[in-house]
């Protein structure tokens, strides 16, 4: 058995993981990153839009500051976020963007003079100041008061990922790819590292560390339809949750995007609708204008996803071998617009559908997009329940996104949180020594060896891994998607209870030797069903609608009863999650109120509860300095 030892073991080498590792390495600690894929293939690299940071350099970003960014983030979260964390994030973001520039990110820069931009299909003019020439510029994103999203053309995630991985190479950080952590080594109090399966050989390894950080991204792949990469399967969440003492924060908080293409669920940008594209049903008729006469296709992501789903339920979906979908029509925008402003959409249609959007319709449907849910940490990134265990990025519920995250805040979170939490890990590691109990290590390895042996040899049953996985994915699509209600959720929970039983009885069809995928899928199957069950049960209990969590039977945002965060534990031997609740935020810099968009009614919180927690803010509700 190969055993490695390091100061900081980072599981996941996307932007958050590598940023955490850099912070440790810069401060003299040995950091090791493990990744299922070569680091640059991480899902971070797929993010195209950009990173929010209040630099205020460009004309439409003038007057922006970290206070306004904070306010946008809290409103975006539908008051579901930890306001201390949102504040930490907004304040650190500009520094982190500049640091990235220093490390090599080719951010787009301010070009002085007159230029044009489009909004709602109309052409406007802007003027960039000479004095700002060459500073980092920004673009517009939904839900933000100012142009704040820093970007590099249409490949921000890719460019930042390259720079971060280069930085790791420069610092001599070991980044091992094709390694998958399959369980944490711990004694119930302290985390000591992980048991890892090598995806080149199939052999098990042990990685021991003083501190461990889980930065494995989201778990969209437990849904059938998701924009996520195939590696976003919850591996990191599962090993933390499986300890029985680490909770998943707000599991019911899952974001959906209206226009994933069918069959592969690759995202086509919101810009299609922004520029005048329409949604059509099986009769090639518009429908969004019926449900939302004012905003029609331009309503918020959640709202459009909701009506699309409703319309398909009414039998107006287009049947296909990959399930039902609707059409996105951008034909009327014309060749010039499509080949310039929507070049990326044009390419996706060409490569993945063989469709020419100038003359043909694009098959789309709402698709799982982001998990605000995650491994619950405190504001230092320390995971609840286990000393020496940290989490950052989409894997974590740190919790700056609450019940809805804004575009451009997720990619920014990876590096900003990575920096902040990396720094806290450095504080933790400084002067810290630990004892590794070899008996615990050996017994954990043995437990994993037995698990693999049992699955490979069909000791528990003979069910097919992929069949059981499909059952879980379909249960979530039916009961826990855009629309939620009591009946659907109850049915989902009960279906998943059956799936859980089945997940414990799977066996391999293949022999499982070497870098076998079927074994990898089997090893995380039960954990995935547990995550699915947490989503369903927490969604069933939360009898309100907040951000992405839409209860048809409880349409109000209920601050009186639900201004809190779900913590879902899975105790050893249990068949259901144990749900606990904690205050959403220790303080209110911005007391709960109307977001200013999205509509809906609010049942207000107890006045005294809010008043007791309000702290002085340097800024008024509209973002003006006091």
């Amino acid at each position, binding site marked *: 058995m190969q055993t490695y030892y390091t100061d900081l073991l980072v599981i996941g080498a996307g932007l958050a993981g590598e940023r955490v590792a850099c912070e440790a390495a810069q401060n003299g600690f040995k950091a090791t990153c493990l990744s299922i*894929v*070569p680091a*640059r*293939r991480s*899902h971070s*690299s*797929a993010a195209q839009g950009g990173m929010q940071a209040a630099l205020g350099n460009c004309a439409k970003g003038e007057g922006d500051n970290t206070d306004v960014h904070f306010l946008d983030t809290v409103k975006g979260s539908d008051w579901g976020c930890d306001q201390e964390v949102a504040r930490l994030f907004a304040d650190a973001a500009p520094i982190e963007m*500049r*640091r990235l*520039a*220093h*490390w*090599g990110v*080719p*951010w*787009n*820069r301010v*070009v002085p003079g007159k230029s044009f931009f489009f909004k709602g299909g109309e052409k406007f003019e802007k003027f960039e100041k000479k004095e700002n*020439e*060459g*500073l*980092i*510029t920004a673009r517009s994103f939904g839900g933000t008061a100012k142009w704040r999203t820093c970007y*590099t*053309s249409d*490949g921000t995630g*890719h*460019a930042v990922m*390259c720079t971060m*991985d*280069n*930085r790791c*190479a*420069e610092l001599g950080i070991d980044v091992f*790819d*094709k390694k998958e952590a399959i369980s944490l080594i711990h004694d119930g109090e302290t985390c000591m590292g992980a048991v890892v399966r090598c995806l*080149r*050989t*199939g052999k098990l390894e042990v990685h021991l560390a003083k501190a461990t950080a889980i930065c494995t991204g989201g778990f969209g792949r437990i849904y059938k339809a998701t924009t996520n*990469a*195939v590696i976003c399967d919850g591996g990191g969440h599962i090993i933390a949750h499986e300890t029985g003492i680490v909770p998943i924060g707000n599991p019911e908080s899952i974001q959906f995007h209206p226009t994933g293409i*069918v*069959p*592969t669920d690759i995202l086509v940008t919101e810009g299609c609708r922004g520029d005048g594209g329409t949604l059509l049903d099986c009769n090639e008729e518009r429908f969004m204008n019926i449900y939302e006469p004012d905003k029609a296709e331009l309503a918020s992501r959640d709202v459009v996803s909701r009506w699309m789903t409703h319309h398909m339920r009414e039998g107006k979906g287009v049947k*296909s071998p990959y399930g039902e979908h609707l059409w996105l029509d951008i034909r009327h925008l014309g060749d010039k617009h499509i080949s310039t402003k929507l070049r990326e959409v044009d390419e996706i249609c060409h*490569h*993945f559908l*063989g469709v020419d959007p100038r003359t043909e319709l694009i*098959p789309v449907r709402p698709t799982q997009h982001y998990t605000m849910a995650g491994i619950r940490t405190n504001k230092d990134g320390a995971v609840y329940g286990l000393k020496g265990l940290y989490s950052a990025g989409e894997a974590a519920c740190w919790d700056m996104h609450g019940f809805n995250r804004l575009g451009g805040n997720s990619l920014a979170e990876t590096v900003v949180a990575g920096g902040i939490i990396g720094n806290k890990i450095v504080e933790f590691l400084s002067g810290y020594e630990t004892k590794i109990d070899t008996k615990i290590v050996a017994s954990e390895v043995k437990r994993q060896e037995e698990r693999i042996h049992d699955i490979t040899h069909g000791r528990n049953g003979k069910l097919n891994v*992929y069949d059981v996985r499909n059952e879980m994915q379909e249960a979530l699509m039916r009961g826990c998607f855009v629309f939620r209600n009591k009946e659907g959720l109850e049915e989902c929970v009960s279906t998943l209870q059956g799936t859980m039983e089945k997940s414990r009885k799977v066996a*391999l*069809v*293949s*022999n499982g*030797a*070497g*870098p*076998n*995928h*079927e074994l990898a899928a089997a090893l995380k199957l039960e954990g995935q069903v547990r995550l699915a069950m947490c989503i369903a049960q927490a969604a069933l209990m939360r009898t309100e609608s907040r951000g992405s969590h839409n209860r048809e039977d409880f349409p109000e945002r209920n601050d009186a009863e639900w201004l809190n965060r779900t913590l879902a534990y899975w105790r050893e031997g249990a068949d259901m999650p144990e749900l606990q609740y904690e205050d959403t935020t220790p303080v209110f810099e911005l007391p709960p109120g109307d977001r200013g968009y999205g509509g809906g009614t609010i049942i207000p919180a107890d006045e005294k509860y809010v008043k007791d927690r309000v702290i002085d803010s340097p800024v008024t509700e509209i973002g003006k300095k006091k």
Partner: protein
Amino acid sequence: MGRQLKFEIFRYNPEVKGDVPHMQTYTLDETPNMTLFIALNRLREEQDPSLVFDFCCRAGICGACAMVINGRPGLACQTKTKDQPGKIILHPLPVFKLIGDLSVDTGVWFREMYSKTESWVHTSKVFDPKAKEERMDNEVAEQVYELERCIECGCCVSACGTARLRDDFMGAAALNRIARFVVDPRDERDDEQYFEIIGNDQGIFGCMGLLACEDVCPKGLPLQNQLGFLRRKMGITAMKQIFRKK
């Protein structure tokens, strides 16, 4: 009704004792908009779970799924079956170490490349968190980004005649990487330092100019332009060094 597709797939699992590299045939009914991502996953989930291949983003952004498709390196995720004949022959990329079936080890190859090319901005400046960012011309920033679009899929290396002949050839991806830092004003390395890295047969002078790298690049990177640019620059550097010695 769609076609019935015939797949001939290279099989070899080095972890199974006595396994011999061979081709295996599968059949699958074609569905509308089918890509090799869909087809291979269906083969694995419905017919043969022992099949080894890599996918990650499945959207042409990450480069994980490069393989030789009917004789030509390309990304499986963005290859539509309708653009292929009824018989689809799949091989792993050559040059890279084989992990199993269609999966090769690009990770280790590229990490070695980062250390050979010292793939990071070399600067003597220290970051000051209190200062405004250093200014940069937007055109230069866009130029740097254009060269950073490489997704490290390995298609260019596997299609390269020199790389097939000698193990130590850096290949177009590495030379493109160097070009990225040459155009970046933040990198303080001078031409002589770059010459130390690529001014030899493992680098810029090993290229036979067959142009396959650029032909197969799924991102359409101007790899041959970069080779020409660097070769000219390194040629001049070499000349200067010769004259200086005299």
